[in-house]
């Protein structure tokens, strides 16, 4: 009985060491991440790219599809978050593009509501 108990105790100790090693010492490769993990400045720049494209093609559905690359959040929310980051940092011309996209999304949502 004592031998079995010791056996299970060392399994638990090994599992704890394994967990700590797997999470902190060797947490796997820093590769193959998904877009929703991108740092906020990269996400904002991606939104700016979508806004630049929207200015060119005026295709809101395509802009929404492109924004969905970043995450499953609502497109309007993604643009709002990007604007929050961009406002103190980006040039006025870029901010204007992002605001135009934001406005178009808001209007589209308002029109969709009964």
């Amino acid at each position, binding site marked *: 009985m004592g031998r079995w108990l010791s056996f299970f105790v060392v399994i638990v100790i*090994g599992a704890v*060491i394994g967990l700590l090693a797997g999470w902190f010492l060797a947490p796997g490769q*820093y590769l193959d991440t998904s877009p929703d993990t991108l740092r906020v400045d990269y996400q904002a*720049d991606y939104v700016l790219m979508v806004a*630049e494209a929207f200015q060119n093609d005026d295709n809101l559905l395509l802009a929404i599809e492109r924004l969905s690359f970043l995450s499953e959040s609502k497109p309007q929310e993604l643009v709002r978050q990007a604007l929050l980051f961009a406002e103190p940092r980006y*040039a006025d011309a870029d901010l204007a593009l992002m605001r135009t996209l934001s406005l178009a999304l808001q209007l589209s949502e308002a029109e969709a509501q009964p």
Partner: protein
Amino acid sequence: MNAPNPGRYEARGFWYLLTGLLIGLILGLAYAWLVQPVRYVDTPPASLKVESKDQYRMMIAIAYAADNDLVRASERLKLLQDEDPFQALTGQAQRILAAEGSLEEARFLSALAVAIEQNPGLFAPASATQTPEE
């Protein structure tokens, strides 16, 4: 009848503990890597999976077609850390054509590739733009 061998029991004791520890380690590592892996946050575009990098690269080419700002496009491409950005762009365009994908998207990628090829200095040491930096 053989007499008990205390040394042999001691050796068995050591090995079963080591076996238990190894089983535990394997279980712990499997859980940490496969079941509940570390979720990274604040990652750079270079760490994206291949399909996402393709999508990001495509968006750079589409934005370039819209604003015609080659410096900005090259700064963005640098974030992907492609070994050869020209090859990455043309390769992606060729894959799209081979899969009978969007001709327009292939054109965007090719246009940016051509512009980069004509301005090789863009991938020399950095110039100032407002695109994010690592």
